[in-house]
């Protein structure tokens, strides 16, 4: 394979991994605080439509990206009010968020189907971007891809080293103890949930503004759910999440290339099953492997908490 083709394949892997990375990283922080938000798919698709709509109407990709994050955050706020303030069942609320997001995005996006959008500008460095293999791989992406990698490092540092991150983990491991030593469990969880929403919204914005770049009803196609699986796969560790997202991006691209190559006598639909089957396989391996029991799932994950006053 010529070196340019290798670079091209790797580039598409990065493209398909980045939305997963954004959404999963947000969910990782949410779950670390002890909250299970199954509405990633809903937040992501609303982020996608909001980003696309704003980018098309204002002509500014940056505003679009911001709108995507804000839309994801707004959805996350609904989730927060229901599960944190009103102590509703997190599983049911997450499902509601997904159903609502898919419906609302379809409604908002009716006028945007089939309209082209100006892709986000690429950050070019004269000279270096032209280097073979390394040039196109490391340079010349749009800002969101760099942001996603930076976010991994930031979240890793935040959870491990910062005081606020340690409080967040304490809240996720034992809400009652954190509450009794004076931390505001609900406030910490609200912040985590809103961050998760913004990240899912960014993932959606990347999909509709960079990856496709088009708006289509239901275009997230289960990526929000795969992001949830990735968090388990990464056993709640940010750097493993990065690896996992690129692995899944690779699987997605692999099946696309195998469909395109033609030489295989396998229907395209069977190839398209690959990412979903891989998710199930990976979840099983993670749960059944020799490291089971040491998965580091936050102890209070999914348990509702109401401070007794």
């Amino acid at each position: 394979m010529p070196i340019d083709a290798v670079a091209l394949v790797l580039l598409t892997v990065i493209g398909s991994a980045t939305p997963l990375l954004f959404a999963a990283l947000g969910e990782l922080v949410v779950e670390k605080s002890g909250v299970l938000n199954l509405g990633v798919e809903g937040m992501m698709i609303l982020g996608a439509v909001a980003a696309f709509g704003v980018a098309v109407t204002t002509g500014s990709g940056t505003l679009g990206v911001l709108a995507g994050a804000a839309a994801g955050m707004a959805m996350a706020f609904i989730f927060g009010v229901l599960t944190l303030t009103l102590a509703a069942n997190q599983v049911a609320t997450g499902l509601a968020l997904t159903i609502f997001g898919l419906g609302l995005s379809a409604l908002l996006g009716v006028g945007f189907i089939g309209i082209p959008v100006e892709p986000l500008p690429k950050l070019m460095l004269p000279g270096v971007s032209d280097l073979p293999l390394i040039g196109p791989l490391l340079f010349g992406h749009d800002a969101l891809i760099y942001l996603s990698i930076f976010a991994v490092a930031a979240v890793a540092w935040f959870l491990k080293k910062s005081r606020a991150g340690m409080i967040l983990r304490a809240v996720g491991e034992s809400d009652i103890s954190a509450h009794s030593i004076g931390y505001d469990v609900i406030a910490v969880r609200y912040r985590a949930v809103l961050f998760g929403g913004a990240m899912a919204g960014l993932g959606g914005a990347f999909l509709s503004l960079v990856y496709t770049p088009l708006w289509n009803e239901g275009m997230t196609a289960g990526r929000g759910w795969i992001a949830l699986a990735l968090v388990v796969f990464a056993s709640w560790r940010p750097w493993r999440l990065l690896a996992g997202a690129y692995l899944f991006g690779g699987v997605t691209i692999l099946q696309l290339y195998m469909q395109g190559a033609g030489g295989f006598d396998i229907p395209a639909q069977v190839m398209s099953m690959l990412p979903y089957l891989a998710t199930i396989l990976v979840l099983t391996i993670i749960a059944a492997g020799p490291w089971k029991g040491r998965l580091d799932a936050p102890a209070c994950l999914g348990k509702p908490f109401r401070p007794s006053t």
Partner: protein
Amino acid sequence: MSHNPGAAGNRLVVYSVFNPASWKIEPRREIPQGLLYATPLLAVVLTVVAGFFIFLSMGYNPFLALYHFFVSPLLTLYGLSELLVKAGPLIMIGVGLAVGFRANVWNIGAEGQLTLGAITGGVIALAFWNEETWWTLPLMCLCAVGGGAAYAAIPAFLRTRFNVNEILTSLMLTYVATLFLSTLVYGPLKDPMGFNFPQSRMFGDAALLPILLEGTRLHLGGVVALMIAVAVWVLMTFTIVGFQVRVLGQAPAAARYAGFSGRRIVWFCLLLSGGLAGLAGTFEVAGPIGQLVPVISPGYGFTAIIVAFLGRLHPLGIILSGLVMALSYIGGENAQVQVGLPQAVTGVFQGLLLFFLLASDFLVRYRVRRNPAALRHAPQAQPAE
């Protein structure tokens, strides 16, 4: 102090109503049954109110839009029959899912199990498509239940054997099932005389559900769904399995202490809900559709989750909530035809309804009272005379 109707006393009242500290929220010791069954109604009312404002903001006449969404479909015999056609699968699936939700078994892949049931039933219909036999339809139903249950057995096995979360696996399998159906109708099951359209042959008469009302699409499935709801109610209320499911959901520790097998309950819940979803799938292809096509259900498997909650996870409540959600489908179609409302409104309404229901649950589980402590410490409080 309440004896003194002075200005300070009035200010105290205003002050305390808007100060969160003056309210006390405490969990109820007992769930008030009346409130438990009244809140779904409240949620429906709130959804309609929200719908009013959504339509208004979209530039439609809200009264007209609501009328065509919620009222005019119910005014014709055809509309009523369509309501039952759509409520059938919702009730059938919702009843099965509710059993699992009670035991904290979260099968959210009913859409996939429905698809598998449609495939297994449909394959039987196509295999005997030119034979007029009485047993085609019963065999299809049997295979559909088997297909749906077998598909739900995958998450059941992974959960009980490897402790893999059934939420994610059952959902991933939904995408796989849809793609599998697509493979079949684009490939081996494509109608040889169908001008290359991705659909199977039309089923023979022996494979089609009898129509109950001439001139409509109302088929036997609706009646079967009602019978299933009653049967599941009996199962949950009067049998040991039903008792075990309820105990496992409400008090897992007690269930373990009593020696109930959690694994068996997981299997039971998933096989039951999968089997019923599969049956609903075959009823769709043997009823309103009449052949295998790439998309069989407008999201019945997901909507049935809302149906289950709206019906308070109670089989008889689910009959009512199934009818309400069915109205959201035909109301959406009707409003699209009558006032040009986008079909997607249906999904928005369904999501809103579940939001409002979950929010109103708060009233069921908690009581909000004036906080006596806050009153005592309020600065405006006057010394007792």
